[in-house]
């Protein structure tokens, strides 16, 4: 139906030249039928592509600090993940580029193997994977659906192989139309077979780089051309489609042609190789198939095909080409018709869902003096820094910067950077280089104080350089002078990391120090109230600290101290050579002080034995403690006073609501309940700090470089909303163990602590982000203290912390220029060196809205939404926050629909390829703990505080967790891809005889349905019936394959997330089972729509706006 139209329309866009507008018109007509199509690119799950090749990366596992493996698990090493290679599929995609035909060449990106899902095609499902760009295909598709879906293309399998096919498409530009089809073809992938095919060959090759090309070459061409298109659609619909296709073509536009032409298609590929890896991965994870990451090598290549969206490299070419963006569209015409019925018409299996990838992509940050579009944050990739920083360290919500503020606001998308300055590198990546400029310190722009970077332009034979941030022309210092080469670059550019790397570290000179770099100070404060003692929290904390001592940095600069508290504060003098430590009690909790001038914090080497002995005896010492009151505020203040001269990390273990002394709190939860009748209007106030005391304290802490981390091992309400202010202001974080169980949480506590102190981190840091004129920093958001408008103070910063920086325009950019961003972080290493880490990112500016959509970075944008939502929760009623988030999603899609989509049918919901998962994530966000109505106050507060510093790669799973089945682990391939077979978060996918593991980076829920084979239970849990599994689950490894695999899986997840999952058992039919279902975000829930319903809702809203 309507869908057909879409296609046509689609193409237009692509045409570069055209402005987006056209679309609108067409659509209207369609409206009636409105179908909602979702185009989603499903990322083909690369399924288990065993990435063999990948191996190398893995090897290095060591490099990572290692997430805290379970105590038991040794897993650390396992970087299995890496192993998986990107499916070859990716490769194919890249090739597309060329098609630049006017048509939006829909790229198909190769849909990677969307494999699994496809076939389903439920008849009705109209959804299509629009993706592929081309609308056209869709049209067909649509039809196809009904029809034969899958069947048709059995061949599909081949196609896959064929990523190659794709290449062909390009080849023949003209075909464009066909190509589209082609893309569609991808669907074929969808075809059942697809998965395998992909897996196989491709994967390995991709890496190989070159090889990949071959594959493509051959087959590829064919595939595309032909079959795919038509068939594909039909078949597989959704899944594949999304993947890719679509978008890419547009790009291809101009350049494309050449490339294409260049027979070379193959070549391109080759080049791509690297990219490939990239793409694939990326695609898979997210759904967006395309990733293109591919960076195409060649310049021309850019055109990537990719799935539309991502453009990678798309050159800024002429507008004409650009178009590609058309995304996928799915039109459900039918729906349109009967809106009501809508839901039924959408095939739940066809709608966009994230598809994990297991392959590793090689990503070059720049190529041909162009910024490449980074792979999704959640995918596995290896970065080669050649000018821009690794996207792990800093990435932008859009990979092209709108020239004007108007353009940005039209898009409704946010413009923000996510900066994670200590993000863990992939083990295969080059370490960040340290540059020592000697006494003069690093070279800086004399006007804006920006640091020298690869984008500073040396002119006048090198005698001057122009700052890329403020445009000022500086004189080159004599000892830094160097001639320029013929290409206008300094001849020594490649030898100087600061001139060729996006990220470098400068050795700081005295000028950057107000005092000598501080030692690494770790002060532990442990709750010993009756409650903590009796729940075992004290013992767990003591054990954790004691064991973690071994992880502290070695050397004389590492200092430690310990205190305990109940209604008073107990310090320990650790230095005494004789006898046991001395306990010093500070009973005045209204006005605390330190009990000694020295000896509370001593060198680890001097006191290790005393300390271990002390930690050992603390639980016994307080065994009969009857004090129930907790002077938490006073305790941290006292700890702070002890650390005031040096600064450092204050690690607090706390179990009950702080009830006495400074910063004491009341049980607001109870109040909240009793006042519930007064309406929900004020409910959010309970998520705000109770008063300013802790905030004031925290600011003082920050001033003296004290960072507070709080481990809440509790079984009651502790008012995280108030408490979390301290860690949030001081660069720390909250850990939450609720309800605390000594049986199951001790290991996590230890691992969290261990990771906390051993992860890469820096102290007494100051960070500032600079950007080119035209933009200015609007706001920083994250865990820090801000005392002056331009800088943020971070008493501590570590590899898990992310800071969001939003920007606003204060001027226009020239089309074709680049906007530079530079994050400068001055900090002290744990070994006491003062360093300045400089992270540079330079992105092209565009005045085309379609470019913005094509270059949109879903993960980053979503992380941004998530943080904004979290910020909003304490200040607005929940329903309002949910509406805002939903509206944000609608506005973006509306903008796209209105200005970029060419589809004429209004009956289709058209999703930009890059953002096709936005509705799903938005829905999940609305249903997340933080935004649900039924959450406990503390859970919600914790969620808010957790989100504040969350990295992009953890933001997504937090909202849209990963679920895999574990009862059938044994039957899954042993290729390290155990994690890839994710299950949509819908209860329809839960079988009565299954056991599932759902993880969001924090918690791992093991759901045991009620008809599980007892043999499996026996193997996994050592019991024969579900009832026999202890509620306080401790995962053990039994001597059988299944159990080992489960352990491997869990350890792998832990490694990936740098977090020791808190495993929790959810039994069907048991109250514990109720924890599980709220995570089934695609289900219809009392307070929320199902995924399909939500899509309908979104579509309807857009239609309303369009009208």
């Amino acid at each position, binding site marked *: 139906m309507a869908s057909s139209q879409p296609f046509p329309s689609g193409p237009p866009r692509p045409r570069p030249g055209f402005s987006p507008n056209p679309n609108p018109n067409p659509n209207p007509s369609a409206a009636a039928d409105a179908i909602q199509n979702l185009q989603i690119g499903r990322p083909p799950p690369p399924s288990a592509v065993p990435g063999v090749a990948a191996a190398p990366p893995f090897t290095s596992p060591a490099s990572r600090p290692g997430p805290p493996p379970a105590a038991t698990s040794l897993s650390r090493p396992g970087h299995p993940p890496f192993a998986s290679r990107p499916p070859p599929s990716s490769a194919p995609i890249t090739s597309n580029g060329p098609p630049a035909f006017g048509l939006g060449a829909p790229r198909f990106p190769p849909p990677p193997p969307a494999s699994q899902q496809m076939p389903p095609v439920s008849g009705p499902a109209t959804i299509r994977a629009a993706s592929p760009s081309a609308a056209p295909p869709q049209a067909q598709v649509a039809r196809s659906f009904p029809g034969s879906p899958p069947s048709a293309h059995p061949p599909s399998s081949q196609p896959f192989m064929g990523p190659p096919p794709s290449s062909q498409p390009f080849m023949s530009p003209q075909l464009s139309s066909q190509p589209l089809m082609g893309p569609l073809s991808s669907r074929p992938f969808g075809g059942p077979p697809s998965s395998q095919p992909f897996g196989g060959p491709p994967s390995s090759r991709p890496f190989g780089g070159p090889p990949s090309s071959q594959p493509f070459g051959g087959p590829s061409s064919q595939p595309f051309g032909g079959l795919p298109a038509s068939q594909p659609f039909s078949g597989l619909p959704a899944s594949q489609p999304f993947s890719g296709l679509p978008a890419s073509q547009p790009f291809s536009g101009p350049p494309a042609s050449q490339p294409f032409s260049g027979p070379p298609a193959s070549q391109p590929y080759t080049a791509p190789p690297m990219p490939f890896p990239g793409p694939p991965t990326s695609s898979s994870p997210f759904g967006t198939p395309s990733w293109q990451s591919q960076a195409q090598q060649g310049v021309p290549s850019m055109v990537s095909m990719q799935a539309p969206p991502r453009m990678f490299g798309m050159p800024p070419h002429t507008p004409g080409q650009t178009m590609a963006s058309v995304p996928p569209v799915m039109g459900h015409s039918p729906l349109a018709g009967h809106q009501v019925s809508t839901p039924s018409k959408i095939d739940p299996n066809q709608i966009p869902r994230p598809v994990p990838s297991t392959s590793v992509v090689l990503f070059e940050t720049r190529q041909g003096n162009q910024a490449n579009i980074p792979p999704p944050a959640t995918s596995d990739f290896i970065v080669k820094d050649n000018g821009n920083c690794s996207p792990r360290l800093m990435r932008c919500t859009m990979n092209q910067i709108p020239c004007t503020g108007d353009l940005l606001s039209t898009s409704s998308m946010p413009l923000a950077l996510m900066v994670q300055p200590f993000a863990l590198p992939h083990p295969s990546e080059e370490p960040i280089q340290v540059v020592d400029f000697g006494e003069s310190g690093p070279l800086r722009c004399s006007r804006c104080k920006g640091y020298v970077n690869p984008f500073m332009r040396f002119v006048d034979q090198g005698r001057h350089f122009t700052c890329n941030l403020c445009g000022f022309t500086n004189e080159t210092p004599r000892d830094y002078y160097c001639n320029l080469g013929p290409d206008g670059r300094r001849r020594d550019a490649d030898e100087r990391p600061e001139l060729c790397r996006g990220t470098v570290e400068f050795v700081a000179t005295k000028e950057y120090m107000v005092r000598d770099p501080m030692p690494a100070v770790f002060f532990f404060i442990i709750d010993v109230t*009756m409650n903590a003692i009796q729940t075992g929290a004290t013992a767990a904390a003591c054990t954790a600290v004691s064991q973690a001592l071994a992880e502290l940095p070695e050397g004389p600069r590492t200092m430690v101290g310990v205190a305990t508290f109940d*209604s*008073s504060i*107990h*310090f320990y003098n650790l230095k*005494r050579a*004789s*006898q*046991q*430590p*001395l*306990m*010093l*009690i*500070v*009973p*005045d*909790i209204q*006005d605390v*002080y330190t*009990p*000694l*001038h*020295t*000896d509370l914090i001593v060198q680890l080497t001097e006191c290790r034995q005393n300390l271990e002995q*002390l930690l050992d*005896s603390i639980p*016994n*010492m307080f065994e009969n403690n*009857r*004090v*129930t*009151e907790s002077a938490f505020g006073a305790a941290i203040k006292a700890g702070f006073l002890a650390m005031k001269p040096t600064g450092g990390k204050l690690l607090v273990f706390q179990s009950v*609501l702080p*009830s*006495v002394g400074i910063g*004491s709190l*009341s*049980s607001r939860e*109870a109040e909240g309940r009793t006042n519930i009748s007064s309406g929900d209007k004020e409910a959010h106030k309970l998520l705000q700090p109770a008063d300013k005391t802790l905030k004031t304290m925290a600011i003082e802490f920050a001033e003296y470089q004290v960072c507070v981390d709080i481990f809440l091992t509790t079984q009651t309400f502790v008012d995280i909303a108030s408490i979390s202010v301290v860690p949030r202001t001081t660069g720390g974080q909250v850990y939450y163990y609720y309800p605390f169980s000594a049986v199951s949480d001790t290991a996590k506590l230890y691992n969290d602590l261990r990771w906390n102190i051993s992860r890469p981190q820096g102290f007494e840091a100051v960070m500032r982000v600079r950007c080119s004129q035209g933009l200015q920093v609007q706001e920083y958001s994250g865990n820090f203290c801000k005392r002056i408008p331009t800088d943020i103070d971070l008493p501590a910063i570590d590899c898990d912390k992310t800071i969001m920086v939003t920007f606003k325009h204060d001027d226009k950019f020239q089309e074709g220029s680049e906007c530079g961003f530079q994050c400068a972080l001055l900090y002290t290493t744990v070994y006491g060196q003062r360093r300045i880490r400089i992270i540079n990112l330079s992105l092209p500016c565009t005045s085309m809205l379609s470019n913005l959509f094509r270059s949109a970075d879903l993960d980053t944008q979503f992380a941004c939404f998530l943080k904004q939502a979290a910020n909003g929760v304490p200040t607005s009623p929940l329903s309002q926050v949910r509406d805002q988030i939903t509206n944000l999603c609608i506005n973006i899609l509306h903008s796209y629909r209105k200005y970029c989509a060419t589809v004429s049918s209004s009956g289709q919901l058209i999703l930009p390829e890059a953002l096709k998962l936005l509705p799903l994530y938005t829905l999940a966000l609305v249903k997340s703990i933080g935004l649900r109505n039924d959450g406990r106050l503390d859970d919600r507060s914790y969620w808010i505080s957790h989100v504040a510093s969350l990295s992009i790669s953890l933001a997504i799973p937090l909202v849209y967790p990963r679920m895999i089945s574990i009862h059938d682990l044994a039957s899954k391939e042993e290729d390290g891809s155990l994690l890839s077979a994710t299950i949509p978060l819908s209860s329809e996918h839960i079988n009565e005889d299954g056991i599932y593991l759902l993880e969001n980076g924090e918690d791992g829920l093991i759901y045991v349905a009620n008809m599980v084979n007892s043999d499996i239970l026996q193997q996994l849990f050592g019991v024969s019936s579900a009832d026999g599994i202890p509620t306080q689950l401790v995962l053990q490894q039994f001597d059988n394959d299944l159990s080992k695999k489960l352990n491997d899986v869990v350890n792998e997840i832990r490694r990936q997330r740098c977090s020791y999952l808190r495993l929790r058992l959810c039994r069907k039919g048991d109250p514990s089972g109720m924890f599980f279902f709220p995570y089934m975000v695609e289900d219809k829930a009392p307070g929320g729509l199902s995924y399909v319903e939500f899509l309908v809702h979104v579509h309807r809203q857009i239609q309303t706006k369009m009208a």
Partner: protein
Amino acid sequence: MAEDLAGGVAGAAASVDPDGPDGVRMTWNAWPRSKVEASKCVIPVAASIAPIRASPSLLVLPYAPLRCKPPCAAVLNPFARVDFAAKIWICPLCFSRNHFPPHYAAISETNVPGELYPQCTTVEYAPPPIDAAAAAIPPPVFLFVLDTCLIEEELGFVKSAMRRAIGLLPDHALVGLVTFGTQVYLYELGFSDLSKIYVFRGTKEISKEQILDQLGLSAAGLRPGTAGASGYPKARLQANGLLPSGSVNRFLLPASDCEYALNALLDELQTDQWPVEAGNRALRCTGVALSVAAGLLGACIPGTGARIIALVGGPCTEGPGMIVSKDLSEPVRSHKDLDKDAASHFHKAVKFYDNLAKQLVNQGHVLDLFASALDQVGVAEMKVVVERTGGLVVLAESFGHSVFKDSFKRIFEDGEQSLGLSFNGTLEINCSKDIKIQGVIGPCTSLEKKGALCADTIIGQGNTTSWRMCGLDRSTCLTAFFDISPSERSSQPGSTNPQLYIQFLTNYQNPEGQMRLRVTTVTRRWVDGSANTEELVEGFDQETAAVVLARYISLKMEMEEEFDATRWLDRSLIRLCSRFGDYRKDDPASFTLHPNFSIFPQFMFNLRRSQFVQVFNNSPDETAYFRMLLNRESVTNSVVMIQPSLLSYSFNSPPAPALLDVASISADRILLLDTYFSVVIFHGMTIAQWRNMGYQNQPEHQAFAQLLQAPQDDAQMIIRDRFPVPRLVICDQHGSQARFLLAKLNPSATYNSAHEVAPGSDIIFTDDVSLQVFYEHLQRLAVQS
């Protein structure tokens, strides 16, 4: 009664116990009947009482006393008139008739209870405890408060003194430990796992409630402000908290249980580790430390005798009670500063200690102060606490000095030398009508129990008939001042009793922990009219009068601004001499004094020159110290403080008292001067030379050796009995230490004295007048009309 009088009159005789069995000495043993007469007597009517003086003849009665009906409540005594037939006794003080209770049914003229024996004017009741709880003898509590802002050496002395003390403590005594410097450390001795210390900051005044609360000892177990907020029911908290009385045992342990722990703590005790900046004094928070100690004891069961034994080595420079800032450029206040009101911290500190005193008195606990420093430590400010609680005070230069070491040891010693430290005393005074009580000077606190017997004018602790003595010992001595205010009716001659009666009731917990009531009833004669000067003169006790006057004038000097003590003394003496001297008007040569007055002018001469009046030679701390001792010592000892005794030893004669005059110095004599605070052995030049040549070691010069030894032995005797232990100074004529002697001698020969100085004698470099000149002036002025 007669014996009493005799005792009073014959007080000067060394062989007789001047205080008698009652331990009561009065300035006037015959009392003028009217107010006017009394004021003409110049010397106030006052009694010096030693409430629990040890007496071998003391009768202890194992039953409860019989008391007169309220409001009198006097205890049955030998002066009561008993009607054996009617089984009635008439109270001599109020003349009420009281029936004997049934258990006195057996009373008869031949069968009288002990309290009615005529010689038993002082008896002690030791009634059996009422119940088992009362029978349980609360152990004494010793809470040590140690200053750690000391140099290592001094801390070492403190430690060794402490170790010795710990060894001497009775096993059942409860012991606690507080140390302080910049902060206060309270040791939880009952915590066995490791050394546990509560730390209080030194800068902040902290109330008893806060302390108890912070130590988890408060009865409620609740912290203010949190009860409601935390939402926990009160009951639950209480259930969880330990009983306050039980938990104080965390800090106070029987000596036998914590001896090891204490010794271990002492071994590890370090000097205060907080840094002291150059040019500054160490931060020392004595005030907070004492607050904490007092607060902790507040958790003890009321009635438990407890002492805070504070060892202080320097001035309080931080927090409440601070006497000087930490900046060394600011000197510690002097008398001059106090006079000019230029001591910025003084009044605040005194106020703080005053409150602390109130708290301790309420709790019935004692503060003992051992101050050892070359500088002042704030005794002047702390005086109020020590004195009100009846604490001991010792001022020394160093913790290594014998004045400290031996005194400190004495506290814990048992046996004959024991100080007989008792607790929880209350003194009640009952007297015949027409007599009002103005107040008491001495180590006690008014309980503000006002009654008809209270005078309008107040001296010292007044406005009451009952005083609290948290700590008292065998030598504790109080001075009660009386006012005579006859009512209309009593002035009618004939209808009145010629005798007046005063009864002192002292309730206290003796060193063994038992509660005792000592009852002393004394009677004196009224002297009617102005004609009977003779009788008054006969009843004058010049020693007591000198001491009372010294105490009185010390009080006035402290209380009254711009008080000119010397003039006041001179005028009083002149008035007294005019009133009681024998002379012809305007003829100085005719002036004579009755023997009962004969040495009084000399006492006054020496008092004028003493540290009590001439304060500018001393620091405020020293002055306070001297006055505290003056106020609490017996008359005999106090006289020595005013007018030192001097013994002379020579080959020619047995040891004999010598004139307190520079003329007593002779090259071949050894002098032994006892000023109470110090004992000086002064070798004449020749003696010193002989000694230096070692004659005493030669067998043929045994006599010389004996001569050298004799004053040493006598000095040791004095030292042994005295608390605080006096400073022993051994010096030679013309040596630098000789100043300790010279300062006390009558400067009859000065550098400008007219007459020849005897060979071997000495002169004093002073412009002070000599006793002789003083006398001359006195005579001249006394006879002036």
